[in-house]
């Protein structure tokens, strides 16, 4: 069974049809990419999965559970975490605090425990801090744990977003254009981080339009164009798929998408 099932999803904003009968099955423990030209509706798919907007038709299920009517913070608690195309860290908080925000729902002490700093409270906070530091070490930012997040470089902010998303203990991680605006060496580093995350057993579902990055990284790829899925399969198959080549390069072009 796939981890995330998107079945027959349609979405229109007023008269503008953004998605039409989109079907995607995202497996667990693998890297799955949704690619497509700008404006194809990729981010809309993420916004639908995380519950920020509601589909006009169709259904989304996570681990077999229908997500219709589930509010975004509950969807996160079920095990879906995401990063954003235009990075959305908490700039005035330290790296450690940023990551600990992700553990919010896992810290379930009550108001009195909080006020009196009971042993249970201290223990929960300590464990949470340790896990946050561990996650920061996964992305090699633990040495900056006490720096404020706005001091980080662009690439580091992306990595902080990864760690923060992982702090919610998700089963599936949604990455929205993780390498946008990065230079080739930063991209290589990030690609390695994403592979590491998959190898630790997480499912990764990413959006990208950097074809080379996707083809080298992903286990499976779906292509979205004008709100429809036009192809789906392993990278090698997608690379030579005539509809994909047409979507990216235009009709009548013999060139292969590299």
């Amino acid at each position, binding site marked *: 069974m796939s981890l995330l099932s998107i079945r027959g999803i349609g979405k229109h904003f007023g008269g503008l049809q953004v998605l039409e009968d989109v079907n995607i099955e995202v497996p667990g423990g693998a890297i799955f990419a949704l690619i497509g030209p700008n404006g194809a509706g990729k981010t809309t798919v993420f916004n639908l999965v995380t519950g*920020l907007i509601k589909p006009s038709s169709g259904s989304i299920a996570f681990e077999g559970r229908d997500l219709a009517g589930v509010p*975004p*913070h509950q969807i996160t608690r079920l095990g879906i*975490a995401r990063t954003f195309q235009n990075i959305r860290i908490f700039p*005035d908080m330290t790296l450690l605090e940023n990551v600990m925000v992700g553990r*919010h729902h896992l810290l379930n*002490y009550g108001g009195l425990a909080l006020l009196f700093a009971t042993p249970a409270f201290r223990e929960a906070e300590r464990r949470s801090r340790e896990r946050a530091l561990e996650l920061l070490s996964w992305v090699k930012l633990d040495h900056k744990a006490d720096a404020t997040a706005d001091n980080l470089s662009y690439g580091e902010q992306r990595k902080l977003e990864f760690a923060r998303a992982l702090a919610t203990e998700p089963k599936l991680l949604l990455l929205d254009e993780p390498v946008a605006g990065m230079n080739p060496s930063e991209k290589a580093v990030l690609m390695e981080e994403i592979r590491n995350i998959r190898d630790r057993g997480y499912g990764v579902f990413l959006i990208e339009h950097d074809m080379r990055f996707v083809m080298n990284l992903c286990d499976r790829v779906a292509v979205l164009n004008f709100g429809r899925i036009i192809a789906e399969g392993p990278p090698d198959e997608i690379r030579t798929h005539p509809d994909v080549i047409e979507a990216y390069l235009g009709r009548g072009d013999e060139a292969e998408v590299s």
Partner: protein
Amino acid sequence: MAAFADFWATYSTLVYSVGIHALLALSLWLTLSCGLLSLANAAFMGIGAYTAALLTLNLHWPFPAALLGGAVAPAVVALIIGAPTLRLSGVYLAMATLAFGEVTRILILNLQITGGPEGLNGIPLLTTGWHIVVILAVAGYGLARIRRSRLGRAFEAIREDEVAARLMGINVESHKLAAFTLGAVLAGVAGALNAHFTFFISPREYGFENAVDILTMTILGGTTSLIGPVLGATILTLLPELMRFLHAYRLAVNGLILVVVVLFLPTGLWDARRFRQLLKNRRARKGGQP
């Protein structure tokens, strides 16, 4: 000792005011820490003041019970008006809470039980210095604990990026309502304490002017720590006393302070992060010398 007695006789009211204003500034600090620009805290102070005063005046409740009433009544009101208004953000929320404040003031002005425009007279003088000190200390301790917990981190996350906070599994609506309501509780207690040492309260003490005063104290002191609001409240309570000759222009001076602070010291007077940075720079300069 005699000198202190003299000083206390003259200035005890001023010291009490500093404490109560500090409590008010902290109440707004809590609301602001969740990103809510609210102008309702003066009204919550009024609701707390009138509730507590009516409880001691008419029903002869003991003071602690009246204080509790002064905390609970604004909390109930905050829960009721919070649900619809907290969907608004930024300046729209400010406008909605401003309207709520005016409605509250006009209600107090026109109700029979509140004494209308004449206000309430002869409230028993039950507030003592240590009441204010203890309550301020408890409030400060509670807020400090909140800051270092999941609750405080959630408030700050919501303030910095609401969408990201939501997708970190935080129930944004319930946290906003909690910050708004806890702020109302603190403002209500401040009002209840105030009513029981000024002997007399009237609707005009809880209007727009007061809402802006509370905001100015908090912003002047700075919202990055708990020291900021207390410092801001102290300065803005003592300043009018030190500059009596400017009395007629008090509001203009407050407005000017707000503008200057927002333009030149957006993080307020007390900014721990700026202090750390300054200290680091100084050390770096010293270290650079041979």
